[in-house]
């Protein structure tokens, strides 16, 4: 157990640190100027120096990401339940969901900015990309409840409501959590993309706007610092949902089995 722990955590960390060291060394040895490629130490220093500005933007971006994610979860789950109740509703509305999904968000963002104020437009963009994986995974999960169990519920004359609560929702949980993990990453991407679109119109205060702004001023270290924060946010979101899956599923679902017992 100890040895595999070491391999699981220490090794990737060591490799990551080695890469940073290599980067630092390359920059120093070749005397690369910071406006071309800043060294990791300078990026770290910028992160500390500009923390007041960057942390504010980080909060803005994270807030939009999570608001979009919550809205996408509520909307996606509700629509999936509606789809599960009626084939006709599913037939009629699923194509719209697909259209929204396959249309690149970069292309929709400028249009949304025409109709909505910048903050709302960013939120809607992040929502649109996060919505589909939750909807489609949830719909799949609701439909994949064991047919024999459905028969059993029918035998005991369970109402559709009880069937939903006691059978279909728990059966859909692993699928939903898979969708949530994808949606978490996508919501962040959606927020960033929309912020860039909005930022180029001269508005917004999220991390993406900081990148664009720093780019205009050739403040490359700050671009990297903002980028590092975005990556860290993405990783954090992924870890949160992985942990959530593990906590909710480890007792019963095969996907969490290895680590569970």
């Amino acid at each position, binding site marked *: 157990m100890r040895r595999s722990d070491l391999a699981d955590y220490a090794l990737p960390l060591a490799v990551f640190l080695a890469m940073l060291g290599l980067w630092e060394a390359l920059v120093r040895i070749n005397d690369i100027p910071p406006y071309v490629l800043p060294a990791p130490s300078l990026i770290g220093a910028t992160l500390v120096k500009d923390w007041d500005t960057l942390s504010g933007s980080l909060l803005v971006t994270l807030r939009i990401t999570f608001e979009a994610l919550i809205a996408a979860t509520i909307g996606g789950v509700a629509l999936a339940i509606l789809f599960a109740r009626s084939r006709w509703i599913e037939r009629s509305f699923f194509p719209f969901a697909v259209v929204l999904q396959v249309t690149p968000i970069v292309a929709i963002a400028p249009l949304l900015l025409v109709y909505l104020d910048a903050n709302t437009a960013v939120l809607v963009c992040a929502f649109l990309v996060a919505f589909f994986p939750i909807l489609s995974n949830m719909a799949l999960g609701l439909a994949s409840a064991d047919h024999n169990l459905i028969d059993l519920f029918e*035998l*005991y004359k369970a109402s559709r409501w009880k069937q939903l609560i006691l059978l279909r929702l728990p059966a859909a949980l692993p699928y939903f959590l898979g969708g949530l993990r994808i949606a978490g990453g996508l919501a962040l991407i959606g927020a960033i993309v929309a912020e860039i679109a909005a930022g180029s119109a001269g508005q917004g205060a999220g991390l993406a706007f900081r990148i664009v702004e720093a780019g205009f001023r050739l403040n490359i270290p700050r671009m990297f610092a903002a980028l590092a924060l975005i990556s860290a946010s993405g990783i954090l979101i992924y870890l949160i949902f992985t942990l959530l899956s593990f906590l909710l599923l480890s007792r019963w679902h095969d996907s969490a089995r290895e680590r569970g017992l």
Partner: protein
Amino acid sequence: MLSLRGVDKVFASGAQALGGLDLDVREGEFLSLLGPSGCGKSTALRMIAGLSQPTRGAIEWRAGQPEIGFVFQDAVLMPWASVFDNVWLPLRLTGASRAQSSAKIEAALELVGLQGFAKAYPRELSGGMKMRVSIARALVLRPALLLMDEPFAALDEITRLKLNNDLLRLKQELGATVIFVTHSVFESVYLSSRVAVFSARPGRVAAEIEVAAPLPRDDEFRLSRLYAQACKQASDALHAAMGEA
């Protein structure tokens, strides 16, 4: 207890599962439906449970439809729920709370020899134990009619024999009527007071065999003359039915 009269079942695909099925089920008997795969015996069972409707013909209940317990080929447990919660399900669907149900659940688990496993999750149990949970769930409402669809087909021989004996003991203790679907001649004769042999395409009853030996039966019975004769009879009837098809 009930009669199936001239029951036909044609699926939407056009496949005919049952054709002119006549079958009477007597109060308190252990009836096996024996037949090759795809002969419609499971379909007949699902119809009795009300999970499927006959295309033609009717199912007549002598005194109204009683409480029914159903055991599937697999244990069909909810993997996210503990053994206790799985057995609670039928009670829960009638609106009984966890506390109200507790005594009945414990009693059902004791019937199948699983006391002390209430908190376990299905995946922590062996195949035989899962099937016991499934039987406890079917028994928790004390049904007057227990329907079993090849419940032990996926289990190993040793577990299967053990569960056969336990099932006979339960049958004697509870006095419920049992309809048991199987494709094993030996299992059907060992368990039943009557075996209905099905022929396939379309499914109907080709022969009925009475197994006169009283309960309790044990391994002694497996060596008896009567058992051997009944097995021969059932086996011949099965071959005849399959030859016809």
